[in-house]
């Protein structure tokens, strides 16, 4: 168990280092910076701005400053947080630096404000995807070959075949302008969550439904399920208590990629529904060339996805006794 965590931690450190380094090099090698579209800047001001963010340093020095809790500046810490109180610590201590565009905010501030919103949206989407996916998948497997099965599979495949912003467009047409049930955009109340959650979760519900169906079909043909039926257990118990545990294994291993997908999918959904989450910040920062912010969000999501994948692997060992932690 300890070996498992140690090994994972080692690979995690390597992954993170690679992501940070590659994106750092890419970010700094690009011509033009976050300030280059403000054409009217006086050269002196631009020099000052560059000095403020240490963009005038050689690349290796900038890199070390970005990574570590070092102070490489002979003239004392110039590279300050938004309010000028804190010297910049570096990625190693969890400080992602100041935002280039939102002058008074650090990347950490922005993430702290927006991440809870994204997490709430993602959780709703995932829960609803699981609920719908498992329900349709199980009933599809139980009524295999019937019209219900065909209809549900068609629904599942369609869900995979449409981009989520198109689903969002249809939802807005139907439930905002057609039947005025929900607000069109924004954030704050529970009703604001329904449509974005649905649109975000729909493709994943579809995929989970397919996975559940095949997983359940495989389990339902096993001998021990027949035994359970033969000893007179009610069908409901056989399905829920005996078959489901084995049948949802593929779904569990899909949860890691699904969560990653929901996080990235929320880029689009947050933009459509004007939700102030991390995803919309990422998109804007990438388009505004706010490199520290977009790097910060990339790093954040790398950490999230890695941690979630590890959790999923652990959960797998609990659900499937044939797999031990050492294999994972």
């Amino acid at each position, binding site marked *: 168990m300890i070996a498992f965590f140690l090994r994972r931690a080692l*690979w995690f450190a*390597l*992954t993170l280092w*690679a*992501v940070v380094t*590659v*994106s750092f090099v*890419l*970010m700094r090698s*690009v*011509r*033009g910076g976050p300030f280059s579209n403000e054409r009217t800047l006086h050269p002196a001001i631009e020099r000052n701005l560059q000095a403020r963010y240490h963009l005038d340093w050689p690349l290796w020095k900038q890199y070390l400053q970005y990574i570590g809790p070092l102070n490489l500046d002979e003239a004392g810490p110039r590279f300050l947080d938004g309010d000028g109180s804190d010297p910049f610590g570096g990625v190693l201590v969890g400080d992602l630096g100041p935002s280039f565009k939102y002058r008074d905010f650090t990347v950490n501030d922005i993430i702290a404000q927006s991440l809870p919103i994204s997490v709430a949206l993602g959780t709703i989407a995932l829960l609803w995807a699981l609920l719908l996916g498992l329900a349709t998948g199980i009933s599809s497997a139980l009524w295999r070959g019937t019209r219900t099965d065909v209809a549900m599979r068609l629904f599942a*495949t*369609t869900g*995979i*075949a*449409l*981009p989520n*912003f*198109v689903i*969002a*467009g*249809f939802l*807005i*047409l139907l439930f*905002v*302008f057609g039947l005025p049930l929900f607000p*069109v955009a924004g954030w704050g109340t529970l009703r604001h969550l329904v449509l974005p959650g649905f649109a975000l979760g729909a493709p994943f519900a579809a995929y989970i439904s*397919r*996975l559940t169906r*095949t997983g359940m*079909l*495989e389990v339902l043909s096993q001998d021990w399920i027949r035994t359970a039926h033969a000893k007179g257990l009610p069908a409901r118990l056989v399905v829920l208590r005996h078959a489901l545990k084995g049948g949802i294994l*593929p779904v569990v291993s899909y949860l890691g990629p699904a969560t*990653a997908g929901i*996080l*990235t999918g929320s*880029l*689009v959904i947050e*933009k*459509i529904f004007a939700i102030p989450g991390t995803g919309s910040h*990422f*998109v804007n920062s*990438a*388009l505004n*060339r706010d490199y520290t912010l*977009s*790097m910060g*969000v*990339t790093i954040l*999501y*790398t950490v999230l*996805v*890695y941690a979630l*994948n590890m959790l999923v692997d652990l959960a797998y060992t609990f659900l499937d006794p044939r797999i031990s932690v050492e294999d994972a």
Partner: protein
Amino acid sequence: MRADLEKTEAERLLREARAARGESLWFDAWRRLRNNRAAFLSLAFLAVVALGSLLAPLFPLPSPAHLDLQDEPKPPVLPWTNLGDHDWDEALYRREHWELSFFDSALVDLRATLFGTWQTGAWLGTDSKGRDLLSRIVWGSRISIQVAVAATLCSLLLGVTYGALAGYVGGRLDNLMMRIVDVLYSVPFIFVVIFLITLLNEYRTTLRDEYGIEYISVFYVVIGMIYWLTMARVVRGQVLSLKNAEFIEAARVLGASTPRILFVHLVPNVLSIVIVYLTLTIPAVMLFEAFLSFLGLGVEPPKVSWGLLAVDGTEAVNPVRTFWWLVAWPAVAMGSTLLALNILGDGLRDALDPKLRGQER
């Protein structure tokens, strides 16, 4: 006497063996696919889409780039219109198109002879800039299919080479290579790619003017980079199970080099599973193209792709007037194609690899 009998017996066996036509894997798979009605219909539908996209200039459609800025989007109308000589100007039609290869030019000529100055009305309506939606969908299919196929081929090349090498060499190298794949799985690639593409945008003109590389071909490679991981894993698994087979041993004894064994002997044998993944990767790439279009990082107008059309439709959603056709038709085009690809992929998987029947991924 006895020797004679044995000889005739042997001849009979030989005749029988000759008479029994061996069924190749491909023939067998084709038969099974044909029996799967949904998959076969999907294949036919996809063939129609591909053909339609190839022959786009032949159809009597309005120009997909013809702007008419006075009007708001017009709802679908059915009739044909004869524009008359003064309105259907072939030179103008040609000028308004962004790219006409020699082949396309010939098709435009053919169109002019076949349909004269007749063209369809706005069968699917027009968009906010007065451009004909049907025409844009037909022309947009070209770029969508191009991106999907090219990016998928990139991922194929990378994934198959990587997976086959790891599986065949084995040992430490295999371990290391697969660990790297594991690590890459947990990198949120979409973020990295968006990051990369925004950076590439900076160099758009430099790339074109100095290196002669179109932005879009870099685009293919970058998208292809995301989708090779699963392919590498699958191919490696297949190669692992094949590499100790007798025909590989025989090749090695005969002195074939490692690259030769890899590409001549091993890769053709993993082709079936690769084709299955191909049909499942293409939809993913098309969706990703749509996603990038949504972020404004996709193809540049006046070029058009299905992703861009879907985005236009979503952006036209507003409370004052419902331009439903702008949302619905691109969604129908894209949705039905991707649906067909998914169904075909499932069907191919069942047909090519009965062991995998009904499994996901």
